[in-house]
């Protein structure tokens, strides 16, 4: 009875949908997060999918997950452990239970827990709950498949189509559990399947069935929950993944700069969605070339840049190895180029679908010769938009390749994105050769800040030759003169050092922190959440998180030396720490390093940081 059911008000909740990669868990999770965001909750999502395209059905390696964190106030991460775990089959329960809190509610489809399913999931007994030590009172065990079949028996759909709707039943059940308005989900599906209204109706019917099932049998759940909304920032929002936001940032920058956007790329997980996204938008004049290899992806972008486009190449770690030579060509030719590296687990093919921050030193140093290159790192899925915009602006205005680092976690995760207004973004003004230099201009003449001027082919009177060989500072002709090479090397370095980047911001107890946490890029949410958690326990903690890595913010040394203890926490073996130690005299931080391919766990961070404070 609904009257006896306890309705708990929660600040935040984490839901994890899991099942076979073909079970549509990503879609169910997406709809749930959109439904929550629409009522003003803040959201953060993280898809966790296997490297195999389609592992055997019901197998342990084929399990795909999608975690959603929704909060009344701000949420910074997709959450460590979940409050509700949906396990569509035995293998999902087996592999995903480790992500559930001890008191989490577990939803299982009993129809997928037959003897064969249990065998595939390597259960030893016929009682998986007991085997895993799960309290049956916390489990909503429902014959989900049977109910979906019954629900759609008259729909005229075939068996395969009917089974594809199982995810919607789970979604309906979760919507009931969190008192969500299913009408929002219905609208989402009506739009998604606008061309197949029959399919939309079937999905809606199944959601309703799942919701009703929850309502009618709620005695099996201890609570239902409500997440109210606090600190709403009014505005219009959409859900966006990091990769999509990155693509949008490039589109916005090209439009602002009045340039054609050119992407030279080669498919590689987890960066491919940027290629997919940009390939869709030909109506904006976006040109994408899927090249024969990573080398050509970058090389063709260098050619496009020479021709006057905003040139971008996108890849992940193994691709960066191959792009290094053409990146270096852009360094010596001083042409604008944005190199997007969506970092994944390495070395070599490594962990293609998993997340790491292990390419930092490679993008800083992994080229022959003295090859200075700006490096930026996006902080979150939604920050990818601004980061891509800022990287493009930097490349175009300073005539240099710029590396933008994201990672699999940021790229695939999503958040509520307040629609940006392009007229509020700073202008992008490349240093085109001033007309008054006609007749006296040579290719390596520089503006006051050390930037080479840009003369785009087609412009009469400025024909010139660039190249990979060292050039004379004055004439632009090939030169092996020792003094000239030394001079050009310094000028290239100075040009990058002159780029102005915003000061490093310190969050939290900036005046009296006992511990300063330092990180970069995609770990921002987890480090910030860890800091907030420690402060709520009365600890004095601050966070300085790097978005600009080369050149470093001017106040870097000042910030790093201000606090009695500093810990550099990163998903590699200490690459940012090494870079900071190189750049800041006498800086000896504590380090926290994890290379697991998974996002940080806030509670683990907190306990490790506490140990450092107590030292």
């Amino acid at each position, binding site marked *: 009875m609904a009257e006896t059911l306890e309705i708990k008000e929660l600040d935040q909740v984490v839901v994890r949908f899991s099942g076979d990669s073909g079970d549509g868990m990503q879609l169910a999770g997406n709809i749930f997060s*959109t439904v929550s*965001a*629409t009522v*003003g909750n803040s959201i953060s999502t993280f898809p966790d999918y296997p490297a195999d395209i389609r592992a055997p059905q019901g197998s342990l390696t084929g399990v795909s997950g999608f975690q959603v964190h929704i909060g009344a106030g701000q949420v910074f991460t997709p959450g460590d452990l979940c409050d509700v775990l949906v396990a569509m089959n035995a293998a999902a329960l087996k592999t995903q239970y480790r992500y559930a809190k001890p008191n989490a509610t577990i939803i299982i489809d009993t129809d997928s827990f037959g003897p064969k399913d249990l065998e595939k999931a390597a259960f030893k007994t016929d009682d998986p709950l007991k085997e895993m030590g799960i309290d049956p009172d916390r489990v909503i065990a429902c014959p989900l498949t049977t109910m979906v079949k019954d629900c759609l028996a008259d729909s005229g759909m075939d068996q395969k189509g009917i089974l594809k709707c199982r995810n919607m039943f789970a979604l309906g059940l979760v919507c009931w559990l969190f008192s969500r308005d299913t009408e929002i989900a219905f609208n989402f599906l009506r*739009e998604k399947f606008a061309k197949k209204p029959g399919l939309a109706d079937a999905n809606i019917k199944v959601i309703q069935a799942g919701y009703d099932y929850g309502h009618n049998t709620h005695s099996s759940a201890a609570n239902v929950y409500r997440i109210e909304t606090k600190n*709403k920032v*009014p*505005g*219009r929002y*959409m*859900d*966006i993944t990091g990769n999509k936001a990155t693509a*949008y940032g490039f*589109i*916005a920058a090209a439009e602002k700069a009045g340039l*054609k956007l*050119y992407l030279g790329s080669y498919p590689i997980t987890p960066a491919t969605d940027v290629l997919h996204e940009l390939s869709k*938008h*030909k*109506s*904006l*004049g976006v*040109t994408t*070339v899927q*090249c*024969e*290899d990573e*080398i*050509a992806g970058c*090389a*063709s*972008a*260098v*050619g*496009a*840049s*020479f*021709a*006057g*486009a905003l*040139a971008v190449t996108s890849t992940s770690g193994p691709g960066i190895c191959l792009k290094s*030579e*053409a990146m270096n*060509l852009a360094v010596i*030719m001083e042409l604008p180029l944005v190199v997007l590296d969506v970092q994944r687990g390495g070395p070599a093919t490594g962990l293609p679908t998993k997340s790491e921050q292990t390419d930092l030193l490679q993008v800083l140093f992994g080229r022959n010769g003295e090859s200075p290159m700006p490096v930026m790192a996006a902080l979150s899925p939604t920050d990818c938009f601004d980061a891509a915009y800022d990287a493009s602006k930097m490349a175009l205005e300073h005539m240099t390749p710029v590396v933008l680092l994201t990672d699999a976690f940021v790229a695939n995760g999503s958040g509520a994105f307040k*629609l940006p207004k*392009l007229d509020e973004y700073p202008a992008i003004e490349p240093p085109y050769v001033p007309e008054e230099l006609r007749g006296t201009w040579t290719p390596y003449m520089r503006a006051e800040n050390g930037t080479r001027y840009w003369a785009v*082919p*087609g*412009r009469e*009177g400025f*024909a*010139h*030759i*660039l*190249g*990979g*060989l060292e050039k004379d500072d004055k004439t632009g*002709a*090939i030169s092996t003169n020792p003094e000239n090479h030394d001079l050009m090397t310094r000028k290239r370095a100075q040009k990058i050092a002159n780029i102005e980047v915003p000061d490093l911001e310190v969050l939290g107890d900036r005046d009296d922190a006992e511990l300063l946490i330092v990180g970069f890029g995609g770990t921002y949410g987890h480090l910030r959440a860890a800091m907030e958690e420690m402060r709520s326990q009365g600890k004095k903690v601050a966070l300085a998180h790097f978005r600009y890595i080369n050149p470093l913010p001017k106040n870097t040394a000042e910030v790093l030396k201000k606090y009695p203890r500093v810990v550099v926490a990163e998903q590699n073996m200490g690459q940012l720490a090494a870079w900071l130690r190189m750049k800041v005299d006498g800086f000896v931080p504590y380090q926290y390093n994890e290379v697991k391919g998974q996002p940080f766990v806030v509670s683990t961070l907190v306990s490790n940081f506490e140990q450092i404070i107590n030292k």
Partner: protein
Amino acid sequence: MAQYTFQDFKKGQPRWCPGCGDHFFLNSLHKAMAEIGIAPHETAVISGIGCSSRLPHYMATYGMNTIHGRAAAIATGCKVANPRLTVWQVSGDGDGLAIGGNHFIHANRRNIDLNMILLNNRIYGLTKGQYSPTSPRGFVSKSSPYGTVEDPFRPAELCFGARGHFFARAVATDAQGTIDILKAAQQHKGASVCEILQNCVIFNNGTHDSVYSKEGRAKNAIYVRHGQPLVFGENKEYGLVQEGFGLKVVEIGKDGVTIDDILVHDAHCEDNTLQLKLALMGDGDGFPIALGVIRDVEAPTYNDAVEAQIEEVKAKKAYHTFAELLETNDIWEVK
């Protein structure tokens, strides 16, 4: 159209060895560009690395002397991003077919509108004399002191295998022959491969001896022209006929053979079988080396198709600015 002379395309003092075939080619390129009449500032010349890749430095056009092997890929981006530019891509046999082989075949397959020059001297010159992917089997060089144990690429075969639509050949010392194929390459929309037989006086002297002199060409080469019978010899006394699956050399006037029996060259034929046979002749097989435009078939170019698709989608889709793109998403409002 503005009138240009070869001087308008010329710049600097070439640094190639005296007698190098690249000098001859460069002069012909300047002349061809003047005759083509496209302005230097609307022309980009893009090379890789190697002796011949120094060429852009001697051009008064826009250009880049880039990195080893990547010229075709860089030229691809340049042309696709700015289709108004006339783009020439210059490589040697090492740059174009060894380290850059992948880009060579894919530029041909995609049919990017590039004029692709392959200066073939069958040797690595800049690194001082190693065998190249066009050196014949058994070739003795610094890196093959006992002879190579591998077969060479035949550039036409690679081009055709990659579904190339234009292939022409000239000898560097033959100015008119070179100018003719360069102009034809520019005329052709799509990837146009021009193989230039070029001598390296230092490391592979004499590699194209049989056709390097005018007299040699009269004896050992056949100039192929679309629509003309395939005849050759000092007095055009020989011709080519088809026999079985192959070609055969015949003497006109002998054994009842008349000019009407001679095969007429068809460069525009979509099927490249006979064109390939022509292109592969002359490897000490009793056939003459074919010079001129061997294949020249119209086909949609990649860059035109990219532009057309953009226009097509622009007409179809309702969003044309970033602000309009945002509105295509599922949006909710927080009040």
